[in-house]
């Protein structure tokens, strides 16, 4: 779901970069990094990175990979998850070309910010009914909300940055194409992410109880 370079107009990514920088600065203050938290944050970021590399086979001969956003948001807190995923996305964009530098602010706002906070608050909303369903919902919503945001941003590009004759200069398809083609597959992918989140969060919370209690 990482958007590469060239698809997002400066009219979109420059304001998003200012907003993203503000959120990162606020998160930096909120997390209050010290000698304990810096290594932990870097470790969590590395975990997020490596979770995205784990390939899980699904019926039908295809594979999916984890996003791990909900897992981090639930195991730590949404600000730590936001900072970690932002760091991972930056390193991925600069070193591996996975997602672009100009689209980094949009990727950061969608995956890192909306993904982490939708997972955290989605969990809080459903928790009163069932803990298990709440974790599942957190995983599902952490995929669906970012996909909705990305589809909207991409679909708005022909409106935001077209030539006078209406020719697109960046992403060429409108909302009528992006919303169904991006959001619908993610509604299903979200189910898988939800199931994996239930399995992993419960397991890690039990196995590493001391680390999370500290």
């Amino acid at each position, binding site marked *: 779901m990482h958007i590469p370079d*060239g698809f997002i107009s400066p009219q979109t990514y420059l304001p998003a970069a200012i907003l993203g920088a503000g959120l990162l600065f606020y998160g930096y203050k909120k997390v209050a990094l010290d000698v304990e938290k810096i290594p932990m*944050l870097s470790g969590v970021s590395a975990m997020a990175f490596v979770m995205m590399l784990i390939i899980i086979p699904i019926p039908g001969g295809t594979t999916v990979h984890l996003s791990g956003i909900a897992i981090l948001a639930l195991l730590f807190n949404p600000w730590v998850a936001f900072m970690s995923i932002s760091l991972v996305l930056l390193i991925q964009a600069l070193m591996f070309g996975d997602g672009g530098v100009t689209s980094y602010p949009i990727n950061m706002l969608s995956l890192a910010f909306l993904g982490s906070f939708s997972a955290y608050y989605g969990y809080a909303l459903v928790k009163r009914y069932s803990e298990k369903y709440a974790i599942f919902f957190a995983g599902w919503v952490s995929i669906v909300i970012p996909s909705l945001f990305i589809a909207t941003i991409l679909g708005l590009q022909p409106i935001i940055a077209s030539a006078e004759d209406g020719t697109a200069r960046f992403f060429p398809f409108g909302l009528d194409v992006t919303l169904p083609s991006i959001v619908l597959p993610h509604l299903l992918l979200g189910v898988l992410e939800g199931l994996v989140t239930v399995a992993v969060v419960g397991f890690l919370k039990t196995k590493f109880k001391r680390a999370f209690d500290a």
Partner: protein
Amino acid sequence: MPEKYWFFLYLFTIVFLGVVHSVWLMGSVIVLTFLFNTKVSKKVSWRIFKKAFLALLVFNGTVSISYLIYGVFVPVSYEVLILLNARALAITLLTFTLMHHINFHKMLSSHHVLGILYAFTFSQMMQLKKMLQDYYFGLKSRGATLKSSVKREQLKPLLETLFATMLHKSNEQSLGLRSRGLLDD
């Protein structure tokens, strides 16, 4: 020129490439960047170009093919498609060229916490990635394919190992920071 200034020049250039909508400009940037890298090393130049091309292949390929199919039914401008792909390749090529020629860690050195955070994250990422790769190689040597690799029953022990390594490494780094007095408590 210090790393920091190269980075700002790079940022300025990629924004500039976003406001100028000329295929010729994008083409010139691609050629010039390629020639610049060739001057340093022919092998490196091809490696960077291949890396940039592969990084864009899936997303740009999907969008381009969809656009071409769309063009069968509705009149479209093919220049848009060329501009879109050329701009993406120019920016990605510039990014990889910059990261090859500058020391990103040195660039962040003026900000103590950011420098440490980046160094720790990158080293842990590489370490965990290596562990995962070794795990995949281990499975492969036993006849498993990538598609049958991490089954549900294997996911938990794998994540447990990765998580335990991450916690251990974080704890070690924390002790290292404290013992060297790199950050005030």
